[in-house]
């Protein structure tokens, strides 16, 4: 187990004038045993960052430490980490047992110990009946568990997960999410988990890194990220439906943006006057898509509130303690 720290980490592709910088100086300290989720839209550099920790991509500038070792120059196998890939990357011609044992075999671990470790991991992951099977004889969820088993048997200092749930169906994804959480509680190994799914990020993370365009927008607990988004990007990316960002709300200072979450708007006798454009019924929640002047906005109806019809005009009152202000130019949060 170990901490992981990023110091001014930069990734550039190409050299000289034609080089493209995709990661712009990441600074973060991850504590020993923490479960960190790196979340962001596709192309934001989250996978690249993870692969830099793994050693599959060079670090152009800055340094990454695992424990107290700078790992910039170390080969992936020397970094004492294990990775779970999006497509599992199991060796198709090897049995489940051999897949899990391969790394240990290369590291010249004695045979009895390999057997003991693989069987222990298989026990935790309920893979015991499948040890002799080939990956193609397993379901998606089972393959996923084998990939995790391969990581566990290494007894690494840190786990790296590269969107491991994106190939599973919705039900299995929720179940595997719980399993990963349970596993982390049991083993307590520092984990970095990359995903583009904010629900996954919110449910799994102890702390999360929100990335956008190669920049770390916010680093904090899911609670903090949700209730105090550091930028307009974080505000619109985290939470479903996303936070309303209004440029022309009544009484708003010029050059500022007002943010308010759909669930923090209440129907009222007086307040903002909205023109309803559409109403969505999603089971547990009902959403109203409406216009406030030129701004679009979503209102989430509370229980017992009567749903309006498209074309109606309704009045809503924002909860004043749940207002967020951002600078329109920088997108940064204006403190409060």
């Amino acid at each position, binding site marked *: 187990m170990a901490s992981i720290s990023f110091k001014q980490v930069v990734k550039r592709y190409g050299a000289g004038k034609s080089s493209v910088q995709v990661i712009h100086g990441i600074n973060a300290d991850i504590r020993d045993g923490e479960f960190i989720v790196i979340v962001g839209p596709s192309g934001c550099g989250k996978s690249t960052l993870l692969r830099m920790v793994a050693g599959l991509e060079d670090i152009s500038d800055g340094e990454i430490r695992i424990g107290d070792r700078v790992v910039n120059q170390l080969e*992936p196998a020397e970094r004492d980490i294990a990775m779970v890939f999006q497509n599992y990357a199991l060796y198709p011609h090897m049995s489940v047992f051999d897949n899990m044992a391969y790394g240990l075999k290369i590291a010249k671990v004695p045979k009895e110990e390999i057997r003991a470790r693989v069987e222990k991991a298989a026990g935790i992951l309920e893979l015991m009946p499948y040890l002799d099977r080939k990956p193609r004889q397993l379901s998606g969820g089972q393959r996923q568990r084998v990939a995790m088993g391969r990581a566990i048997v290494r007894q690494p200092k840190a786990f790296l997960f590269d969107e491991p749930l994106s190939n599973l169906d919705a039900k299995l994804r929720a179940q595997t999410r719980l399993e990963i959480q349970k596993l982390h509680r049991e083993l307590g190994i520092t984990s970095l988990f990359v995903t583009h799914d904010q629900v996954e990020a919110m449910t799994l993370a102890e702390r999360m890194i929100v990335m956008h365009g190669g920049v770390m927008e916010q680093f904090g607990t899911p609670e903090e990220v949700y209730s105090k988004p550091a930028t307009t990007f974080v505000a619109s990316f985290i939470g479903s439906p996303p936070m309303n960002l209004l440029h022309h709300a009544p009484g708003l200072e010029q050059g500022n943006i007002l943010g308010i979450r759909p669930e923090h708007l209440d129907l009222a006798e007086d307040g903002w006057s909205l023109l309803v454009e559409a109403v969505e019924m999603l089971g547990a929640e009902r959403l109203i898509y409406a216009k406030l002047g030129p701004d679009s906005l979503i209102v989430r109806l509370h229980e017992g509130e009567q749903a309006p019809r498209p074309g109606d005009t309704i009045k809503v009152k924002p909860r004043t303690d749940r207002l967020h202000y951002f600078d329109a130019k920088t997108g940064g949060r204006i403190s409060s």
Partner: protein
Amino acid sequence: MIERRPALTVLSHLVLILGVIIVAFPVYLTVMASTQTAQEIAQHVPMSLLPGGNMLETYRVALFGGKTSAGTTIGAAGPMMLVSLVSALVIAIGKIAISLLSAFAVVYFRFPLRSLVFWMIFVTLMLPVEVRIGPTYEVVSSLGMLNTYAGLTVPLIASATATFLFRQFFLTIPDELVEAARMDGAGPMRFFWDVLLPLSRTSIAALFVIQFIYGWNQYLWPLLVTTDESMYPIVMGIKRLVAGEAYTEWNVVMATAVLAMLPPALVVVLMQKWFVKGLVDTEK
């Protein structure tokens, strides 16, 4: 075919049966001729299509050599088959080994002029053996490799086709698998042995069959580089039986031809199991 029309079924079977007859008849003729005596073949025109009674004697002479009843001396086919077998095996295995390694280098290593190297290999596809046979002979003879197994096999081993085939196969192997192996601490050669080679099994089997037959059927090249009878491959042996003496013992020629057909046929039959296996469990 999705359609089920009786007329179409009859027609397609007719075409297939015709095809089989066209292919199979010469083989049948060869086998039948090898069971008769030379006199019987010479006297009956056209020859009888039924088996004769001289089979054992004909094959004994063809395999071990000796004097026929007509007094012709026949060279033994046995040693020639051994020469053919050794060169075909060396060519097939050598081609596969070299192509695997060069494809591995071209796909997985970054080195200067990598694509130039690949295209240089690829361009040699355009030059068949016959085109470069003069200079190749010059090289082989200057190196003193005439009448040796090295002379028979080495010039035929380099293969752009096989390199290209393995390259295409390696390109289909997902990058994540390579990365997983790196994370597991496998070096390049370890990855080659433990992952690439087992995954290439079916392509290797297919290539082996093709290259074995290619090596076995070589005629022009051995004709140039061998002058010593003990280094003649079987294919050359057949030709010598026909042209060598005034009176051709057709039954022995045919028996030798059958003997020359057997090993490649055996290889195809045995390796066919592997093909089917490769088709059934797609491991990718």
